[in-house]
């Protein structure tokens, strides 16, 4: 079944490429073989795993690469290499943990510390790199990596293990057991604020609350968490200028008159300055209308070929897709994201032990929340914070992390289904 669906997606991909340039069939063949390989790995290591997840992930990645190719063929080549690496790591994860992934539970503190370590890595002088005001990258030679992406998964693993251990006592309200939890989580938040990565901070916080809720069934914790969050957000708004600016952009992207522009130090309408990217991206989405302009026919460059939207193929790939695929295509894509989320939660429901349930639920919710934070930011539902669109965005670390996430879900699923037989 996966093979059939996979082939279908590959052919869609080839057709899509055909619109852009006839000479890029090789991309389609390359894709087909990569996914065939991934599929074989899945069949061999986790034969009973959910059959829909891999093809859906394949679809996301394929759509992503098509759009990245359309925006910048060189980036598409790099992305393809990353996909190969990602599938390699995916295979490694499956092979290493196929017997019983639950043994990592024993190393939960190690995992938690590793997550913090990874998060703190970019803050280290020498190897950390600042891009667009956020210090998220590690650079070794010409090799760039965003360790936060993997840290997210490790943190979810830690939370799942820790919460399974302490859920009963936590449910009874023994606050002392929250200690290590808050410690690790607090450290993570501190690092995120330090690196100015608000989007990830929001994501981690959401995952944390969701997992605590699933583990304890105490809505009080969620309530307290939200109150804490509101207080934290208010403080951040007051104290951190970049947070305040994000909120201002969100509330009022267009101004009739000129306002102070921090980037140039001049007076400009806000749509020409701070909210330039958001506004141009909204124009791009609106231009898609119902049916879209068609793949390869969207407008992303001005009359002299200058790009209209910065970071289009990373954080803003959704606005490129929405323009070219229109409401029909964008909604269809989001529906598949919903389907992926549903399958993920289904795995959590079917899993037998608490660790597996928490792990699957955490990974899935993280996937859905990340989608909401970036796309919701682009659509001006919430203030815009730059994180990647899962599987679709250009970015090596993100693709690798997402495939590891997929491997985790498949492992849980395989175990649950095997035990049921």
């Amino acid at each position: 079944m996966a093979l059939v669906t996979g082939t279908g997606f590959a052919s869609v991909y080839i057709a899509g490429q055909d619109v852009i340039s006839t000479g890029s069939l090789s991309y389609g063949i390359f894709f087909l073989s990569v996914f065939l390989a991934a599929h074989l790995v899945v069949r061999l290591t986790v034969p009973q795993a959910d059959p829909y997840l891999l093809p859906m992930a394949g679809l996301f990645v394929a759509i992503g690469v098509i759009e990245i190719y359309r925006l910048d063929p060189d980036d598409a080549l790099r992305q393809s290499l990353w996909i190969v690496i990602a599938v390699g790591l995916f295979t490694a994860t499956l092979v290493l943990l196929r017997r019983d992934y639950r043994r990592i539970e024993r190393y939960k503190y190690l995992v938690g510390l590793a997550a913090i370590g990874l998060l703190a890595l970019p803050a280290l002088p020498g190897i950390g790199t600042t891009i667009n005001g956020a210090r998220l990258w590690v650079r070794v030679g010409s090799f760039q990596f965003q360790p936060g992406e993997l840290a997210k998964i490790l943190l979810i693993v830690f939370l799942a293990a820790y919460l399974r251990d302490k859920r009963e006592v936590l449910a009874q309200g023994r606050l002392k057991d929250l200690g290590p939890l808050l410690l690790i989580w607090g450290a993570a938040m501190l690092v995120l604020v330090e690196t100015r990565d608000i989007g990830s901070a929001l994501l981690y916080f959401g995952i944390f609350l969701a997992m605590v809720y699933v583990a304890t069934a105490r809505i009080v914790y969620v309530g307290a968490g939200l109150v804490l969050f509101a207080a934290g957000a208010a403080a951040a708004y007051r104290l951190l200028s970049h947070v305040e600016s994000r909120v201002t952009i969100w509330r009022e992207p267009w101004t009739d008159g000129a306002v102070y522009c921090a980037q140039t130090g001049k007076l400009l309408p806000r749509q020409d300055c701070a909210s330039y990217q958001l506004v141009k991206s909204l124009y791009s989405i609106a231009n898609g209308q119902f049916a879209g302009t068609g793949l390869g026919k969207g407008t992303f460059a001005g009359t002299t070929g200058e790009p209209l939207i910065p970071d289009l193929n990373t954080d803003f790939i959704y606005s490129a897709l929405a323009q070219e695929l229109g409401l029909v295509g964008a909604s269809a894509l989001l529906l598949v994201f919903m389907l992926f989320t549903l399958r993920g939660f289904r795995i959590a429901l079917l899993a037998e032990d608490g660790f597996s349930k928490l792990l699957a639920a955490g990974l899935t919710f993280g996937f859905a929340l990340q989608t909401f934070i970036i796309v919701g930011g682009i659509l001006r539902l919430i203030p815009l914070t730059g994180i990647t669109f899962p599987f679709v965005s250009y970015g090596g670390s993100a693709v690798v992390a997402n495939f590891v996430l997929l491997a985790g879900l498949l492992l849980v699923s395989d175990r649950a289904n095997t035990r049921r037989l």
Partner: protein
Amino acid sequence: MNRQITRLAVSALVLLVALIGATTYWQTWAAGGLADRQDNAIKVVAQFTIRRGQIYAADGRTVLATNRARRVQGRTLYFRRYPAGNLAPHIVGYSTQVRSRAGLERSQNDYLIASNKNLRTVLETTLDRLRGVTIKGNTLVLSLDAKIQALANRLLAGQCGALVALEPATGRVLAMASAPTYDPNLIEKRFGELSRIEANCRPAAPLVNRATDGLYVPGSTFKVLTAAAALESGRFRLDSTFDDPGYCIEYGKRVTNYADQSGPEVFGRVDFTAALQHSINAVFCEIGKALGPLVLIEYAKRFGFYSVPPLETPVNERAPSGLYQGSRLFRPKNRFQVDPGRFAFGQERLLVTPLQMAMLAAAVANGGLVMKPHVVERVVSPDRRTVARAKPEELGRAVSAETAAALTSMMEAVVSAGTGTAAQLPGVRVAGKTGTAETGVPGLNQTSFIAFAPADRPRVAIAVMLENQEGTGGRTAAPIARELLQALLAGGSNS
């Protein structure tokens, strides 16, 4: 734990559904509003994906505006090019990325990008859009005669001024030149070079269409209108006689005739024709006093004064003629607000455009009937079908045919044996009137000449207006008019 997982799943789905909702909002509900926003660069680019229609001169061969296709980021964009350079930039205008548009490129944009509402165009562009082919705009064919236009530019070279040639019976604009002229190809990337254009006025302001937007003191050319009012009102007749002492008394002071080294001219007893022929200020001053300014304004309005003259160019590139106070038209409430004598010979606060003066000459030539001027002769679809064609339209009757005939005979006398002899053509009866207006700078005048020919069966009517001239209208503007009339009549621009 399953209950919590189910609840979490529901909340996650709610978040994703909200994304679909928001996408729907932006792509349907809000899309129109965003498309209209000025900073929407996508819509700007979209304009350049359309192959704009071309603009041709009357011969259908001289290309005034066309496109150069360029591949930008995998798509073809069409940028404007003006092969005729400085031939008629003030009418054609320009369409660029950096400076929006001007001239017909601006006012006829709907035709040029095929978004006009003619059924055929709507059908074809919709089909093109569905098939994903480039949308092609409609082509404009102007009434401008390329050769005459080139001659007009040559005659005005180095000067500041303008010239308009109309076909009296139809209102067709045969030539319309504004000097100094400029090359519209410079607008996009070499705009700075335009400021280096020099002429005998400062600033040279080459972008202004002086033919429709330049305001000049008409001086004695306005006497044609005063004569028209005098005759049409019945207060004076062609055989009325006047006594010219060399001056006219206004507000207790003398207003003298044109003066040379030997002092003001004095003509004594003259008839109406001689008064116009020699452009006697004292006589027209008396006529003005007799008619009063309100009557003069009423007749001026009949010729089109006090309203923006109709033409296809953008309305902000055309100015109305009339009495001005500061930069605004002045509409006197009673006769005491205007000096009637000076008004009658084209001074006071009177300012006119060359187009309006050409319309005055054309109306006299056309038996008193004012025709609506037009410069766009035909609109042609990409498959060479005519989308729209200009039809001669009457703006109204200014004076009766008899009055027009009388004015014609008077104007003929100006050219045959008066101030306008420099406009004489062998074998052709030319009717004309000179104008010389002092500008306040000693020795520098605004000179003008209006004319039509042949006087018995007029085919062309023209107005020439020049800035900063040392001589009179008869010596500066009339020779230019002569060259132009000769070329126009030789070209055989038959209606």
